[in-house]
């Protein structure tokens, strides 16, 4: 119950809401090597069943798109299933299915990834096919225009039909003044409609190359067995220099912003606040780990400060929480959300949240809160090892945004090293109204 409401109230952009790669990884003990064309390879062994997850990640996402081309990274992801010199449109998926494989693909602001989960004896076939579509994609106008309609339907499903998602998109555009994180991953509808075959192929040729790609294979395999296959299929692709990811950066932010959406479809109002925040790779990166612990203590679950204060003790909210991800290539955000109980005004709710924020900024966190949060977060590394795809996803995402394997592997220790002083410093540095967007999702009375 609690969780479901929190998710409804989140109103985060697609890149975070759908893809938050759990950094709460832990130790996967991967093996790594590189191919001569610059493609990196990661292997995570897991021998529970004779199955592997085979993923290829590209160091390109929605934040790497050109002006006027929002949605092109995600559109290309759809189009990658439409055939090559060797294979007709849709044949890729038919072969995957015929071989008992499961597949999917996803796009965030920072990366695009494709994967199949298959019996290990079929792995070689999928490596051949995935390598093939890295450089041999063939598209026609007709295929492109039909798939565009699918993407526009996807946008309607995800965003246009949902007032909370519409507000989330507007909040993101307001939070980032200049950084391309301001764009929706799925793209603005008018720009999706204008994407042409030339745009898409130019984007594909610019970014889809071995030096911009990472192969991750997890499951019943070893690096020694994978290496000759990786060299045969991916190593044969001609080398090209890695494409630089030049993105506009944020100017200093000095004025807090407010974004309000009133819609007759809203049956449960929601309050939100997003602060521009550093990530592990952008801004005041020294605060990143402290912010992860802070988000957990302040609003990470039913025992968190915010949930207790708003939902349990004062009973003015139905849900409340906070979230932060350190794993972004560019500037991240520290988000807070709450839904008022019927009859409680936004002003009352906001005042109480401000009070809790002030307490946090002035008084920091207690030793007991800190110890409990660390223990919880570190234990999550053990659970992350349980599934076949957990390690593959975490490691792939980390490398694709520009982190190192050791950043994932050492995560439990780095969380363990966070001090109460660091949390106070991070709270003081980041939770500044002038660098935030406050959002209101409200009911519009019809009549």
């Amino acid at each position, binding site marked *: 119950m609690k969780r479901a409401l929190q998710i409804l109230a989140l109103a985060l952009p697609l890149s975070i809401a759908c893809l938050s790669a759990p950094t709460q990884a832990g130790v996967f003990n991967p093996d790594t090597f590189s191919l001569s064309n610059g493609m990196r390879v990661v292997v995570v062994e897991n021998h529970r069943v004779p199955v592997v997850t085979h993923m290829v990640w590209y160091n390109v996402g929605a934040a790497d798109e050109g002006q006027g081309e929002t949605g092109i990274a995600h559109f290309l992801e759809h189009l990658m299933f439409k055939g090559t010199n060797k294979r007709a449109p849709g044949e890729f998926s038919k072969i995957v299915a015929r071989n*008992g494989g499961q*597949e*999917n*693909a996803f796009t965030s602001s920072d990366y695009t990834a494709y994967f199949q989960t298959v019996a290990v004896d*079929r792995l070689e076939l999928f490596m051949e096919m995935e390598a093939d579509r890295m450089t041999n994609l063939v598209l026609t106008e007709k295929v492109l225009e039909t*798939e565009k309609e699918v993407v526009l*339907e996807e946008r*309607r499903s995800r965003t246009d039909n949902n007032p909370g998602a519409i507000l989330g998109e507007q909040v993101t555009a307001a939070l980032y003044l200049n950084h391309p994180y301001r764009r929706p991953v799925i793209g603005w509808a008018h720009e999706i409609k204008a994407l042409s075959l030339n745009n898409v192929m130019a984007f594909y040729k610019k970014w889809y190359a071995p030096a911009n790609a990472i192969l991750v294979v997890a499951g019943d395999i070893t690096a020694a067995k994978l290496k000759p296959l990786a060299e045969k299929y991916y190593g044969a692709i001609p080398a090209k220099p890695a494409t630089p990811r030049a993105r506009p950066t944020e100017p200093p932010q000095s004025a807090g912003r407010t974004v309000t959406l009133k819609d007759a479809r809203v049956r449960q109002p929601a309050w939100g606040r997003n602060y521009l925040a550093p990530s592990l790779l952008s801004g005041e990166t020294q605060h990143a780990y402290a912010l992860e612990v802070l988000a957990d203590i302040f609003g990470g679950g039913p025992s968190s400060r915010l949930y207790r204060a708003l939902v349990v003790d004062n009973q003015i909210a139905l849900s409340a929480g906070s979230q932060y991800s350190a794993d972004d290539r560019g500037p991240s955000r520290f988000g807070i959300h709450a839904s008022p109980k*019927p009859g409680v005004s936004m002003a009352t709710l906001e005042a109480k949240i401000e009070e809790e924020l002030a307490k946090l900024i002035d008084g920091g966190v207690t030793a007991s809160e800190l110890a409990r949060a660390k223990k919880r977060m570190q*234990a999550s590394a053990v659970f992350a090892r349980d599934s076949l795809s957990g390690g593959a996803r975490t490691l792939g995402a980390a490398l694709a945004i520009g982190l190192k394997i050791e950043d994932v592997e050492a995560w439990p220790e780095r969380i363990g090293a966070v001090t109460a002083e660091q949390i106070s410093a991070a709270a003081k540095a980041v939770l500044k109204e002038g660098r935030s967007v406050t959002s209101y999702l409200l009911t519009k009375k019809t009549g």
Partner: protein
Amino acid sequence: MMTRIFGPLLIAALLLSAGVFSAAPAHAVTIERVVSPGGINAWLVRDHSNPIISMRFSFRGGAALDPKGRIGLANMAASMLDEGAGDLDSRTFQQRLEDLVITLRFRAGRDSLSGRLVTLAENGDTAFAMLALAMSKPRFDAEPVERIRSQILAKIRQDSEQPGAIAGETLFKTLFPSHPYGRPTDGLKDDVAAITQADLKAFTAGRLAKDNLIIGVVGDIKADTLATLLDSTFGGLPAKARSWTLPEADPQGAGRTIVIKKRVPQSSIVFAEKGLKRSDPDFYAAYVMNHVFGSGGFTSRLYSTIREKHGLAYSVYAGLHPLDRAGLIFGAAGTANVSVAETLRLLRQEWAKMAKDGMSEKELADAKTYLTGSYPMRFTSSGSIAAMLVGIQRDNLGIDYMDRRNGLIEAVSLGDVNRAAKDLLRANKLTIVVVGDPKDVTSSN
């Protein structure tokens, strides 16, 4: 995930028919039947590769048994069971779960109340003890009762404006106008408002018992340790659940189209027709047939025609949806208001075509290699294995089912699938609900 997400119902349908593997690629798990000294049964798959324990359990009888005037009781009870028990008030209980990183959740379905316990092996004793306390001595204190009630009411309110939720609720109401399956599992607003502490206590006392309990455990635990924990955790439950009857449900509303006007850019379409129960001898034939027709990932006929060829929808599928007292084929699609008529035309066309012409040998062969070859993928996390252990027991498929399952798929012939298609897919019997502002589509009669 950005692309290609399928509806949760499809996933549910696949899980319900959870099967297992035979012959070639071994599923590599061994099921032990553990019987505690007190007579509690559980199926166990030991896995010492990671120090965690995953348990799933289920009590037969779910929200469909909610008493008149208290529709939503099972759902609310499920949400309340982790909100304080014994000497531990809600705050203390929740804090302890969080501190020990124990996941404890209950969920009400139409036919069962199910639960999930996931813990580090080192905290196993405490985790099981907390579950025991939650089931035997739930407190249902006023503060958490009111808090959870207000959260459920908020969800009901939100769903009342959410096109997909309205469509699903309307469809079930239409299919089962006078059967409990027609009622929303989350409950009715006024009924949820009226639920008392006494109702919740009566629910747990009457519904959580030993004779309707099914347990599956996976992870870093020995059989004898589990046997002891089974008694201390479930041994205190009453021997028998309060007796219940749930009549058979024959889906109504065949051939009806219902349009509910909402000013949204995309219409939500849901559709259903009478299907099969899990115990039906033709279930496997229907399952393989429907894989080709509606749930075969990026290759099903509905997907190829409506999404791939015509670009009319992002998500479109149909899946078998077996309940204890009824069977359905259920599906959904979302499309722009202007494309609803065309999408429905194609849907009916595919429906009729499969019934009339059936499928080819090649389609059948491809479906079988997928369904049998992908079976090991269900064994890639301890939670999904535990869920299968419960599902197989629930459907009385037998402890050797995992070894037999692929053989059952292989045994389906072209005659079987085409007969199933003819029996099941009757385009003129489809019940369709559209929520949105569709152009040129109106409610029938």
